[in-house]
């Protein structure tokens, strides 16, 4: 009798147990928009595929005291249709709904986008800028960590064997906050980001930035949180000098590669450009009444 090579557990616990008990290699399957491509190319040949689609905890969005808890396997298209989420976190949502095509968004999830470990993943910089937290379950129980602690390098995460990302929590939002995500792609859709930049700001009643987080994608082996760039904006009204200081910090943080999508010089320069533009959009959203 051949061993099962495909299971659809009904709970997180059952999924963790299936992973832990597997004798060979395993792969989790949520939307499948990365896994199926890798299966086809032979890049992965898992002995066991664990499909997460029947686990209620992994699908859907719920509010918890102003925070949003997003099931890690929720399709991005569903997130895009969530009005409250889009109002509170337009940057995160625009990042999530830039992934691939409408077809891809019908299946792709934030969890998959994060755990696939691509340095260019669109949703990761926006989640980092948002201060999102990863909720993880595994053989050792539940734990939490900042989103930026999950990617370890191209194609790798810091998840321990048999751990599963269960949900992503976006913190409660102070008033007058706004976020934005921009990416550079040669076409208008369908490309992997050559550079991605996310900015999340809070301003006071006078429009002065009181908190800022800046994160970049596709310019390092993992998405980067650039503290110096956020610091450059704090206390400013996003005047030209502050933007330039931020851009310089962004460029200094970049450690990209030359590949078929972009060069080191190009990525570095454009990272600064996009961060500046994203900052302006986030500031506009914050001052126009960004809310919790």
């Amino acid at each position, binding site marked *: 009798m051949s061993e099962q090579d495909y299971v659809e557990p009904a709970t997180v616990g059952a999924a963790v147990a299936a992973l832990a008990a597997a004798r060979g290699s395993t792969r989790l399957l949520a939307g499948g928009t990365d896994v199926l491509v890798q299966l086809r190319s032979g890049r992965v040949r898992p002995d066991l595929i664990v499909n997460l689609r029947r686990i209620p905890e992994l699908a859907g969005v719920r509010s918890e005291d102003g925070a949003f808890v997003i099931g890690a396997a929720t399709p991005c298209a569903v997130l895009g249709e969530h009005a409250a989420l889009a109002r509170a976190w337009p940057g995160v949502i625009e990042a999530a709904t830039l992934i691939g095509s409408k077809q891809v968004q019908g299946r792709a999830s934030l969890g998959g986008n994060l755990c696939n470990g691509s340095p260019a993943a669109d949703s990761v910089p926006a989640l980092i800028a948002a201060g999102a937290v990863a909720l993880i379950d595994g053989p050792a129980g539940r734990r939490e960590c900042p989103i930026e602690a999950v990617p370890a390098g191209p194609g790798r995460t810091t998840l321990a064997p048999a751990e599963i990302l269960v949900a992503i929590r976006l913190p409660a939002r102070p008033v007058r906050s706004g976020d934005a995500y921009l990416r*550079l792609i*040669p*076409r*208008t*859709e*369908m*490309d*992997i980001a*050559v550079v991605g930049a996310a900015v999340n700001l809070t301003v006071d009643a006078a429009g002065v930035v009181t908190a800022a987080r800046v994160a970049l994608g596709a310019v390092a082996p993992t998405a980067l949180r650039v503290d110096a760039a956020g610091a450059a904006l704090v206390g400013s009204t996003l005047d030209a000098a502050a933007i330039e200081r931020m851009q310089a910090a962004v460029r200094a943080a970049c450690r990209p590669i030359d590949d*078929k*999508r*972009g*060069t080191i*010089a*190009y990525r570095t*320069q*454009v990272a600064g*450009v*996009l961060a500046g533009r994203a900052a302006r959009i986030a500031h506009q959203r914050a001052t126009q009444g960004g809310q919790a």
Partner: protein
Amino acid sequence: MNDATHAANATGLKVVGQRPIRPDGADKVTGRAVFGADVHLPGMLIGRVKRSPHAHARILRIDTSAARALPGVKAVVTSDDFPRVGSEALEQGEGSATLVDVADNCLARGKVLYAGHAVAAVAAVSSEIAERALDLITVEYEVLPHVIDVEAAMAPDAPLLNERLFTAGVTPRPTTPSNIAQKTVVARGDVAKGFAAAEVVHEGRYVTVPVHQGYIEPHACVAWAGADGQHQIWCSSQGHFAVRAMCAKVLGLELRDIRVYPAEIGGGFGGKTTVYLEPVALALSRQCGRPVRMVMSREEVFLASGPTSGGVVEVRLGAMKDGTIVAAEVTLKFQAGAFPGSPVGAGSMAALACYAIEHAVVTGYDVVCNRPKVAAYRAPGAPIAAFGVESAIDELAVILGMDPIDLRIRNAVKPGMKAVYGASFREIAFVETLQAIQAHPQYRAPLGPNQGRGVAAGFWFNIGGESSAAVHVDEDGGATVITSNPDIGGSRASMAMMAAETLGLPIERVRATIADTTAIGFSALTGGSRVTFATGMAVVQAAQRVVQDLKRRAALTWECEADQVEWRDGAAYCTDASKEVAPLSLRDLASRSARTGGPISAEVSLNAQGAGPGFGVHVCDVEVDPETGRTTVLRYTAAQDVGRAIHPAYVEGQLQGGVAQGIGWALNEEYVYDAKGVLQNPGFLDYRMPVASDLPMIDTILIESAPNPRHPYGAKGVGEVPIVPPLAAVANAVQRATGVRMRALPISPPRLLAALDGEG
């Protein structure tokens, strides 16, 4: 022979020029249409190909024994299963290849010449088992140095692909082998004298890289060998007679022993005018007697099917201050890929065809390199040559301070002139096409910051050639048109329309089908913009014969002379007033056909001459983001000298589709190779073709002031011209928007930004 009464400027046409729904359309919008990969036969096996990982290597040994032994594997082939063949030139429409090269490209013999070159193939009961079988085939290679770049391949110390290739077209004949397969020269006048008289001289070097036709349907076929030596092939191709011929010749079979059924084809653009899978599938099927399906994956399409050349275009123009171009010198260096046969010859002839330049020389080099052998791609050679020439002319316009259309009008060829490449132009409307763009509202639309407008022209010969068509009338007075040209762009609609017009039937009573190689006479490929012209001509002649036959039958019925019968609006009228007979409709005559001689049908085979060349003029507005180098196309209008648009919507579609391909070629499409000569972007993710949100509406102007009198309805070929102008139209627009001249394609954001920052 054409009926001159159907003169090109005939008015009162009832069907031609309208926009009916194509007769095969319902199948395509319901999913019922059968493409190559949709064919399913009982007992069908799945075939897969093992491909070289190396760009250039000698094959030392292939061991297929473990693959043959795997349960579920029914056949395995290598080039040992192909006979040795000679170097006769093959009919490939606008491609050019020899038999031995086509055979060696299907399965490598002795050497692999590009990463992706096929070395063996298996047929098995499932794709899973076929893939495992491929892994079990071991190939020992001796890896050799490789060369990809065209000028690197031309260098005397370049790694040689073929030690028995000597440059043709050079005297005395060289004794050292070379990667330069051929040198061609097209010339007239005395360029030295021309340049000496010029008041302004501009020189430029323009570079393009390889791009793919990008058809959405991968190559697909099913082959089924018969135990009696009679075989069948179903395939998506641009010419199933050509597929029959190539399979027969590659495998050493007789043409009559292979019957090829045309599946619907999901795009070709020239790329499906040769064979990759069909001879291999047939060889596998002959080994085991079962049908074998072979379908390329998208990766295989990029790795191993024929894209077009990359090229270097060096242009030197000499002009007077009033804009008259008095001398032109162009050098084209085109990559042919692994085997000789780039479109440099056609590119050389087309390069200056738009202009009445007295002194000109165009030198072309066909250069092999370690990439897949190129196949035709829509006006092969002309877009690359036009990128250089039309960019250079634009640079000249800037130097002279002239409007770019005025400069072209000043130098445009007109009826009665002789082209640089030798042909005489008769009914052409290039000047009118230029003027149409100048008069179009886009030409005057205001431009904002970082926006620019570019203009470019293009030319293609269009061909005629051999075609067959039959028209059958049914007993209830409907008709069917049968041809053997696969329908890529909606040609069945035009065939039905031309037959309907000639017969005097409404279009709803006419059907059009595409028959297999036994059911209709020979037709050359669907390509060269020839189907509406040449096959249309055969259709009309067949319909005219039917009309003559119907008149004869009416005369018989009325007992009058044949010349007393007139055919009008689908019925016969007796011109002898004394007869007092009612008209006989086609339905009336068809219902009694047995009494008047039997079934009513006619078949015509011809070799159409007198195809009309086409001219296109495009205007493109772009906006460039100066901080990222990203280019957006804001507006685009394409005008073209089409003769007569049989079905205007499908003619517009040809223009729009060619424009979209040209924009992709200009902005983002390219083959990316690594240092080992392996393709890095064999997929639609990183081979970036335009998507719907990348493009604006594409306005079209169909110029019908110069119909082709050699076609019964005045049609000229239209499908290829549209891809010729966009490369330079985009580059010229970028120059006007930014002040920076991009002489290398694609104008991708990193390259444009580097140029804007003064680094490029």
